Protein backbone atom coordinates (compact mmCIF):
# COMPACT_ATOMS: atom_id res chain seq x y z
CA UNK A 1 0.00 0.00 0.00
CA UNK A 2 1.24 3.44 -0.89
CA UNK A 3 1.86 5.58 2.15
CA UNK A 4 0.72 9.16 1.55
CA UNK A 5 2.58 11.87 3.41
CA UNK A 6 0.14 14.76 3.57
CA UNK A 7 1.59 18.06 2.40
CA UNK A 8 1.20 21.39 4.14
CA UNK A 9 -0.54 23.92 2.00
CA UNK A 10 -0.91 27.63 1.71
CA UNK A 11 -3.45 28.86 -0.83
CA UNK A 12 -4.85 32.29 -1.58
CA UNK A 13 -7.61 33.46 -3.90
CA UNK A 14 -7.96 36.83 -5.62
CA UNK A 15 -9.07 38.37 -8.86
CA UNK A 16 -5.40 38.98 -9.73
CA UNK A 17 -1.95 38.39 -8.25
CA UNK A 18 0.12 40.45 -10.67
CA UNK A 19 3.39 40.91 -8.75
CA UNK A 20 3.34 37.49 -7.06
CA UNK A 21 2.62 35.76 -10.35
CA UNK A 22 5.48 37.66 -12.01
CA UNK A 23 7.80 36.59 -9.20
CA UNK A 24 6.82 32.92 -9.60
CA UNK A 25 7.42 33.06 -13.34
CA UNK A 26 10.78 34.77 -12.83
CA UNK A 27 11.95 32.06 -10.41
CA UNK A 28 10.81 28.93 -12.25
CA UNK A 29 9.85 27.62 -15.64
CA UNK A 30 6.28 26.41 -15.93
CA UNK A 31 6.57 22.63 -15.70
CA UNK A 32 3.07 21.54 -16.54
CA UNK A 33 -0.23 23.08 -17.56
CA UNK A 34 -3.47 21.15 -17.42
CA UNK A 35 -7.16 21.77 -17.54
CA UNK A 36 -9.47 19.83 -15.28
CA UNK A 37 -13.14 19.95 -14.41
CA UNK A 38 -14.43 19.00 -10.99
CA UNK A 39 -17.65 19.15 -9.03
CA UNK A 40 -17.33 20.28 -5.42
CA UNK A 41 -20.07 19.41 -2.97
CA UNK A 42 -20.53 22.32 -0.62
CA UNK A 43 -22.53 22.72 2.59
CA UNK A 44 -22.65 25.46 5.18
CA UNK A 45 -22.10 22.87 7.89
CA UNK A 46 -18.78 21.47 6.70
CA UNK A 47 -15.34 23.08 6.73
CA UNK A 48 -13.03 20.16 7.44
CA UNK A 49 -13.75 17.95 4.44
CA UNK A 50 -13.04 18.81 0.85
CA UNK A 51 -15.42 16.69 -1.22
CA UNK A 52 -15.08 16.63 -4.97
CA UNK A 53 -15.77 14.53 -8.02
CA UNK A 54 -13.36 14.32 -10.94
CA UNK A 55 -13.72 11.91 -13.86
CA UNK A 56 -16.61 10.22 -12.02
CA UNK A 57 -14.36 9.50 -9.02
CA UNK A 58 -15.15 11.00 -5.67
CA UNK A 59 -12.44 11.87 -3.23
CA UNK A 60 -12.63 13.43 0.17
CA UNK A 61 -9.72 15.28 1.69
CA UNK A 62 -9.83 15.56 5.45
CA UNK A 63 -8.20 18.43 7.27
CA UNK A 64 -5.59 16.72 9.44
CA UNK A 65 -4.21 19.77 11.20
CA UNK A 66 -3.30 23.41 10.90
CA UNK A 67 0.26 24.33 11.75
CA UNK A 68 1.78 27.81 11.47
CA UNK A 69 -1.32 28.83 9.58
CA UNK A 70 -0.75 26.10 6.99
CA UNK A 71 -3.25 23.35 6.38
CA UNK A 72 -2.48 19.66 6.08
CA UNK A 73 -5.04 17.57 4.19
CA UNK A 74 -5.23 13.83 3.74
CA UNK A 75 -6.89 12.61 0.53
CA UNK A 76 -9.02 9.49 0.50
CA UNK A 77 -10.59 7.93 -2.56
CA UNK A 78 -14.22 7.14 -1.78
CA UNK A 79 -15.13 5.41 -5.01
CA UNK A 80 -16.36 5.75 -8.51
CA UNK A 81 -19.80 6.35 -10.01
CA UNK A 82 -22.09 4.49 -10.26
CA UNK A 83 -21.86 4.61 -6.46
CA UNK A 84 -23.67 2.48 -3.91
CA UNK A 85 -26.28 4.19 -1.76
CA UNK A 86 -24.59 2.69 1.26
CA UNK A 87 -21.36 4.56 0.46
CA UNK A 88 -23.28 7.79 -0.09
CA UNK A 89 -25.13 7.33 3.18
CA UNK A 90 -22.26 6.18 5.35
CA UNK A 91 -19.31 8.13 3.96
CA UNK A 92 -20.36 11.02 1.77
CA UNK A 93 -23.25 12.60 3.68
CA UNK A 94 -21.53 12.38 7.10
CA UNK A 95 -18.56 14.19 5.53
CA UNK A 96 -20.92 16.86 4.19
CA UNK A 97 -22.23 17.36 7.72
CA UNK A 98 -25.87 16.99 6.73
CA UNK A 99 -28.40 14.18 7.07
CA UNK A 100 -28.57 11.69 4.24
CA UNK A 101 -31.83 11.52 2.31
CA UNK A 102 -33.81 8.32 1.87
CA UNK A 103 -32.28 6.54 -1.10
CA UNK A 104 -34.71 4.86 -3.45
CA UNK A 105 -32.08 3.01 -5.45
CA UNK A 106 -29.22 0.66 -4.65
CA UNK A 107 -26.76 2.73 -6.64
CA UNK A 108 -26.61 6.03 -8.50
CA UNK A 109 -24.87 7.23 -11.64
CA UNK A 110 -23.12 10.60 -11.36
CA UNK A 111 -25.91 12.24 -13.37
CA UNK A 112 -28.58 10.78 -11.10
CA UNK A 113 -26.64 11.74 -8.00
CA UNK A 114 -26.26 15.39 -9.09
CA UNK A 115 -29.63 15.88 -10.77
CA UNK A 116 -31.75 14.00 -8.24
CA UNK A 117 -30.07 13.66 -4.86
CA UNK A 118 -28.04 16.88 -4.73
CA UNK A 119 -30.49 19.06 -6.63
CA UNK A 120 -33.28 18.07 -4.26
CA UNK A 121 -31.23 18.61 -1.12
CA UNK A 122 -31.60 22.21 0.12
CA UNK A 123 -28.41 21.94 2.19
CA UNK A 124 -25.97 20.81 -0.49
CA UNK A 125 -24.78 22.81 -3.47
CA UNK A 126 -22.86 21.34 -6.40
CA UNK A 127 -20.27 23.81 -7.63
CA UNK A 128 -19.02 23.03 -11.12
CA UNK A 129 -15.44 24.14 -11.51
CA UNK A 130 -12.99 24.34 -14.36
CA UNK A 131 -9.35 24.85 -13.44
CA UNK A 132 -6.43 25.71 -15.68
CA UNK A 133 -3.49 24.80 -13.49
CA UNK A 134 0.12 25.85 -14.06
CA UNK A 135 2.79 24.10 -11.98
CA UNK A 136 6.18 25.36 -10.84
CA UNK A 137 8.83 24.27 -8.35
CA UNK A 138 10.28 26.97 -6.14
CA UNK A 139 12.44 26.45 -3.07
CA UNK A 140 11.61 22.70 -3.20
CA UNK A 141 7.90 23.52 -2.93
CA UNK A 142 5.20 22.72 -5.43
CA UNK A 143 3.74 26.05 -6.53
CA UNK A 144 0.67 26.49 -8.62
CA UNK A 145 -1.07 29.34 -10.35
CA UNK A 146 -4.58 28.47 -11.50
CA UNK A 147 -7.38 30.19 -13.30
CA UNK A 148 -10.55 28.86 -11.73
CA UNK A 149 -14.11 29.13 -12.99
CA UNK A 150 -16.71 28.45 -10.31
CA UNK A 151 -20.07 27.90 -12.00
CA UNK A 152 -18.67 30.06 -14.82
CA UNK A 153 -17.32 32.93 -12.67
CA UNK A 154 -13.58 33.54 -12.69
CA UNK A 155 -11.13 33.80 -9.81
CA UNK A 156 -7.42 33.14 -9.52
CA UNK A 157 -5.57 31.06 -6.96
CA UNK A 158 -1.94 30.54 -6.03
CA UNK A 159 -0.82 27.64 -3.85
CA UNK A 160 2.42 26.56 -2.22
CA UNK A 161 2.74 22.99 -0.96
CA UNK A 162 5.39 20.88 0.70
CA UNK A 163 5.73 18.13 3.27
CA UNK A 164 7.93 20.60 5.16
CA UNK A 165 5.86 23.47 6.64
CA UNK A 166 9.02 25.56 7.14
CA UNK A 167 9.69 25.54 3.41
CA UNK A 168 6.13 26.65 2.66
CA UNK A 169 6.46 29.60 5.05
CA UNK A 170 9.83 30.55 3.53
CA UNK A 171 8.43 30.38 0.02
CA UNK A 172 5.43 32.50 0.96
CA UNK A 173 7.83 35.22 2.04
CA UNK A 174 10.04 34.78 -0.99
CA UNK A 175 7.07 35.27 -3.32
CA UNK A 176 5.84 38.34 -1.48
CA UNK A 177 2.78 36.98 0.30
CA UNK A 178 2.13 39.32 3.23
CA UNK A 179 -0.07 38.55 6.23
CA UNK A 180 -2.98 40.19 4.41
CA UNK A 181 -3.23 37.06 2.29
CA UNK A 182 -5.38 34.65 4.23
CA UNK A 183 -4.82 30.92 3.79
CA UNK A 184 -8.03 29.91 2.03
CA UNK A 185 -8.80 26.40 0.90
CA UNK A 186 -11.02 25.54 -2.06
CA UNK A 187 -14.23 24.72 -0.16
CA UNK A 188 -14.00 28.01 1.74
CA UNK A 189 -13.38 30.06 -1.41
CA UNK A 190 -16.28 28.37 -3.17
CA UNK A 191 -18.54 28.91 -0.16
CA UNK A 192 -17.73 32.61 -0.32
CA UNK A 193 -18.43 32.83 -4.05
CA UNK A 194 -21.76 31.06 -3.75
CA UNK A 195 -22.63 33.22 -0.77
CA UNK A 196 -22.59 30.77 2.13
CA UNK A 197 -19.83 32.76 3.81
CA UNK A 198 -18.42 36.29 3.61
CA UNK A 199 -14.93 37.16 2.41
CA UNK A 200 -12.99 38.54 5.39
CA UNK A 201 -11.87 41.76 3.72
CA UNK A 202 -15.26 42.58 2.33
CA UNK A 203 -15.56 45.72 0.26
CA UNK A 204 -17.13 48.64 2.05
CA UNK A 205 -20.61 48.40 0.53
Amino acid sequence: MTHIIPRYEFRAFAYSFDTIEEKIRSLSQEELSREITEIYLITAANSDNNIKIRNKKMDIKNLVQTKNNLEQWLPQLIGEFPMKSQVLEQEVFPSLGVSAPVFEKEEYSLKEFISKIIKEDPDVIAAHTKKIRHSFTINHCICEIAEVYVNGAFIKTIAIESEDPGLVTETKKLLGFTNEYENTNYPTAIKRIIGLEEWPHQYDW
Partner: protein
Amino acid sequence: MSKEALKIGEVSKPRFEFRTFGQDFEDAHYLMSRLSAVVPEKVWERQSDEIYILSKTNDINNTKIRDGKMDIKTYVQTVDGFEQWNPLMKGEFPMKKEVLANEVFPAFQVEMPADIKDELSYDEFMTIIENHPDLQAVRIHKERYGYMVNDTICEVGDVLVNGAHVVTINSESTEVADIAKTIKEVGLEGVENINYLQMIKRVIGWINKPLAN
Protein backbone atom coordinates in the same frame (compact mmCIF):
# COMPACT_ATOMS: atom_id res chain seq x y z
CA MET B 1 -46.08 56.54 -34.18
CA SER B 2 -42.58 58.00 -34.01
CA LYS B 3 -40.22 56.31 -31.63
CA GLU B 4 -38.93 58.07 -28.58
CA ALA B 5 -35.20 58.89 -28.78
CA LEU B 6 -33.37 57.14 -25.96
CA LYS B 7 -30.94 59.05 -23.83
CA ILE B 8 -28.36 57.21 -21.79
CA GLY B 9 -28.72 57.70 -18.07
CA GLU B 10 -32.25 59.13 -18.33
CA VAL B 11 -35.58 57.54 -17.49
CA SER B 12 -37.65 56.38 -20.47
CA LYS B 13 -40.70 54.19 -20.96
CA PRO B 14 -40.05 50.49 -20.17
CA ARG B 15 -37.33 49.05 -22.35
CA PHE B 16 -36.76 45.65 -23.82
CA GLU B 17 -33.38 44.17 -23.16
CA PHE B 18 -30.91 41.70 -24.51
CA ARG B 19 -28.25 40.82 -21.96
CA THR B 20 -25.90 37.95 -21.63
CA PHE B 21 -23.09 36.84 -19.33
CA GLY B 22 -19.92 34.86 -19.84
CA GLN B 23 -16.16 35.29 -19.82
CA ASP B 24 -15.27 36.55 -23.28
CA PHE B 25 -17.14 39.08 -25.43
CA GLU B 26 -14.04 40.82 -26.74
CA ASP B 27 -15.05 40.70 -30.41
CA ALA B 28 -18.58 41.92 -29.70
CA HIS B 29 -17.21 44.65 -27.43
CA TYR B 30 -14.84 45.80 -30.16
CA LEU B 31 -17.68 46.01 -32.71
CA MET B 32 -19.94 47.75 -30.22
CA SER B 33 -17.32 50.39 -29.51
CA ARG B 34 -16.72 50.98 -33.25
CA LEU B 35 -20.41 51.18 -34.10
CA SER B 36 -21.27 53.42 -31.18
CA ALA B 37 -22.44 56.99 -31.50
CA VAL B 38 -20.74 59.52 -29.27
CA VAL B 39 -21.99 59.03 -25.70
CA PRO B 40 -21.90 61.43 -22.74
CA GLU B 41 -18.70 61.28 -20.71
CA LYS B 42 -20.66 60.35 -17.56
CA VAL B 43 -21.41 56.90 -19.05
CA TRP B 44 -17.97 56.14 -20.45
CA GLU B 45 -17.11 54.27 -17.31
CA ARG B 46 -19.23 53.76 -14.19
CA GLN B 47 -18.70 51.74 -11.03
CA SER B 48 -21.24 50.63 -8.50
CA ASP B 49 -21.67 48.21 -5.61
CA GLU B 50 -25.02 46.57 -5.17
CA ILE B 51 -26.60 43.81 -3.18
CA TYR B 52 -29.06 41.58 -5.01
CA ILE B 53 -31.55 39.67 -2.92
CA LEU B 54 -32.18 36.29 -4.49
CA SER B 55 -35.16 34.13 -3.70
CA LYS B 56 -35.29 30.43 -4.47
CA THR B 57 -38.96 30.70 -5.32
CA ASN B 58 -38.89 33.78 -7.54
CA ASP B 59 -37.64 34.44 -11.08
CA ILE B 60 -39.80 37.40 -12.04
CA ASN B 61 -38.85 40.11 -9.57
CA ASN B 62 -35.36 41.55 -9.43
CA THR B 63 -34.50 43.17 -6.10
CA LYS B 64 -31.33 45.13 -5.53
CA ILE B 65 -30.04 47.55 -2.94
CA ARG B 66 -27.65 50.33 -3.87
CA ASP B 67 -26.52 53.03 -1.44
CA GLY B 68 -29.14 51.89 1.08
CA LYS B 69 -31.98 52.22 -1.45
CA MET B 70 -34.06 49.28 -2.60
CA ASP B 71 -35.19 48.95 -6.18
CA ILE B 72 -37.46 46.13 -7.39
CA LYS B 73 -38.15 45.49 -11.06
CA THR B 74 -40.68 43.02 -12.32
CA TYR B 75 -40.68 40.95 -15.47
CA VAL B 76 -43.43 41.97 -17.90
CA GLN B 77 -43.04 40.01 -21.11
CA THR B 78 -40.66 38.56 -23.68
CA VAL B 79 -40.96 39.72 -27.28
CA ASP B 80 -38.78 38.12 -29.96
CA GLY B 81 -36.53 36.80 -27.20
CA PHE B 82 -36.04 40.19 -25.52
CA GLU B 83 -37.22 40.77 -21.98
CA GLN B 84 -39.16 43.75 -20.72
CA TRP B 85 -38.91 44.68 -17.03
CA ASN B 86 -40.84 47.46 -15.29
CA PRO B 87 -40.06 49.23 -12.02
CA LEU B 88 -42.22 47.73 -9.25
CA MET B 89 -41.11 49.67 -6.19
CA LYS B 90 -38.41 51.92 -4.84
CA GLY B 91 -37.82 52.18 -1.12
CA GLU B 92 -35.38 53.38 1.44
CA PHE B 93 -34.19 52.20 4.86
CA PRO B 94 -35.43 52.33 7.52
CA MET B 95 -38.35 50.51 5.88
CA LYS B 96 -41.87 50.18 7.30
CA LYS B 97 -43.25 46.74 8.10
CA GLU B 98 -46.23 47.57 5.89
CA VAL B 99 -43.99 48.10 2.85
CA LEU B 100 -42.14 44.87 3.58
CA ALA B 101 -45.40 42.95 3.98
CA ASN B 102 -47.20 44.41 0.97
CA GLU B 103 -44.41 44.92 -1.54
CA VAL B 104 -41.05 43.41 -0.66
CA PHE B 105 -41.84 39.91 0.61
CA PRO B 106 -44.55 39.36 -2.01
CA ALA B 107 -41.86 40.19 -4.60
CA PHE B 108 -39.61 37.53 -3.06
CA GLN B 109 -42.59 35.15 -3.18
CA VAL B 110 -41.85 33.88 0.33
CA GLU B 111 -43.69 34.31 3.64
CA MET B 112 -42.56 37.25 5.72
CA PRO B 113 -41.33 36.18 9.19
CA ALA B 114 -44.06 36.76 11.76
CA ASP B 115 -42.11 38.55 14.48
CA ILE B 116 -40.99 41.56 12.48
CA LYS B 117 -40.65 45.06 14.00
CA ASP B 118 -42.73 48.04 12.81
CA GLU B 119 -39.73 49.50 11.05
CA LEU B 120 -36.47 47.85 9.96
CA SER B 121 -33.03 49.35 9.53
CA TYR B 122 -30.86 48.09 6.68
CA ASP B 123 -28.84 45.87 9.06
CA GLU B 124 -32.00 44.39 10.60
CA PHE B 125 -33.38 43.67 7.14
CA MET B 126 -30.13 41.98 6.09
CA THR B 127 -30.20 39.80 9.22
CA ILE B 128 -33.65 38.57 8.22
CA ILE B 129 -32.37 37.77 4.74
CA GLU B 130 -29.37 35.93 6.19
CA ASN B 131 -31.59 33.77 8.40
CA HIS B 132 -34.19 32.96 5.75
CA PRO B 133 -33.64 29.55 4.12
CA ASP B 134 -35.01 30.68 0.73
CA LEU B 135 -33.34 34.09 0.48
CA GLN B 136 -29.75 35.07 -0.11
CA ALA B 137 -27.90 38.36 -0.44
CA VAL B 138 -25.30 38.46 -3.18
CA ARG B 139 -22.67 41.19 -3.45
CA ILE B 140 -22.19 42.58 -6.90
CA HIS B 141 -19.53 45.02 -8.03
CA LYS B 142 -20.00 46.49 -11.51
CA GLU B 143 -17.68 48.38 -13.82
CA ARG B 144 -19.73 49.40 -16.83
CA TYR B 145 -18.72 50.95 -20.14
CA GLY B 146 -21.54 52.67 -22.04
CA TYR B 147 -22.23 52.84 -25.78
CA MET B 148 -25.11 53.73 -28.09
CA VAL B 149 -25.65 51.58 -31.17
CA ASN B 150 -28.67 51.86 -33.49
CA ASP B 151 -30.35 54.07 -30.90
CA THR B 152 -30.10 51.31 -28.31
CA ILE B 153 -28.37 51.82 -25.01
CA CYS B 154 -25.51 49.37 -24.82
CA GLU B 155 -22.97 48.44 -22.22
CA VAL B 156 -20.17 46.03 -21.54
CA GLY B 157 -19.52 45.33 -17.89
CA ASP B 158 -17.00 43.62 -15.68
CA VAL B 159 -19.02 42.19 -12.84
CA LEU B 160 -17.79 40.62 -9.62
CA VAL B 161 -20.27 38.20 -8.06
CA ASN B 162 -19.19 37.69 -4.47
CA GLY B 163 -15.67 38.42 -5.72
CA ALA B 164 -15.65 36.19 -8.83
CA HIS B 165 -15.56 37.77 -12.27
CA VAL B 166 -17.99 37.53 -15.18
CA VAL B 167 -18.47 39.77 -18.21
CA THR B 168 -21.80 41.10 -19.38
CA ILE B 169 -22.87 42.77 -22.61
CA ASN B 170 -26.26 44.24 -23.37
CA SER B 171 -28.46 46.32 -25.64
CA GLU B 172 -31.70 47.88 -24.51
CA SER B 173 -34.36 49.96 -26.12
CA THR B 174 -38.08 50.52 -26.31
CA GLU B 175 -37.80 49.20 -29.89
CA VAL B 176 -37.28 45.45 -30.27
CA ALA B 177 -36.16 45.77 -33.89
CA ASP B 178 -33.31 48.08 -32.95
CA ILE B 179 -32.03 45.59 -30.37
CA ALA B 180 -32.24 42.74 -32.90
CA LYS B 181 -30.25 44.80 -35.42
CA THR B 182 -27.64 45.66 -32.79
CA ILE B 183 -27.04 42.15 -31.54
CA LYS B 184 -26.74 40.96 -35.13
CA GLU B 185 -24.21 43.65 -35.97
CA VAL B 186 -22.04 42.95 -32.94
CA GLY B 187 -22.12 39.21 -33.58
CA LEU B 188 -24.27 38.11 -30.66
CA GLU B 189 -27.11 36.56 -32.63
CA GLY B 190 -28.02 33.16 -31.19
CA VAL B 191 -26.31 33.86 -27.85
CA GLU B 192 -28.54 33.10 -24.88
CA ASN B 193 -30.33 36.05 -23.26
CA ILE B 194 -29.35 35.81 -19.59
CA ASN B 195 -30.59 38.42 -17.11
CA TYR B 196 -28.92 39.30 -13.81
CA LEU B 197 -31.19 37.04 -11.73
CA GLN B 198 -30.47 34.06 -13.96
CA MET B 199 -26.73 34.73 -14.00
CA ILE B 200 -26.51 35.06 -10.22
CA LYS B 201 -28.58 31.92 -9.65
CA ARG B 202 -26.24 30.00 -11.95
CA VAL B 203 -23.07 31.30 -10.26
CA ILE B 204 -24.30 30.56 -6.75
CA GLY B 205 -25.34 27.08 -7.82
CA TRP B 206 -29.12 27.41 -7.57
CA ILE B 207 -29.52 26.70 -11.28
CA ASN B 208 -27.31 24.11 -12.89
CA LYS B 209 -26.74 25.79 -16.25
CA PRO B 210 -23.63 27.33 -17.78
CA LEU B 211 -23.19 30.98 -18.74
CA ALA B 212 -22.98 31.93 -22.43
CA ASN B 213 -19.24 31.15 -22.63
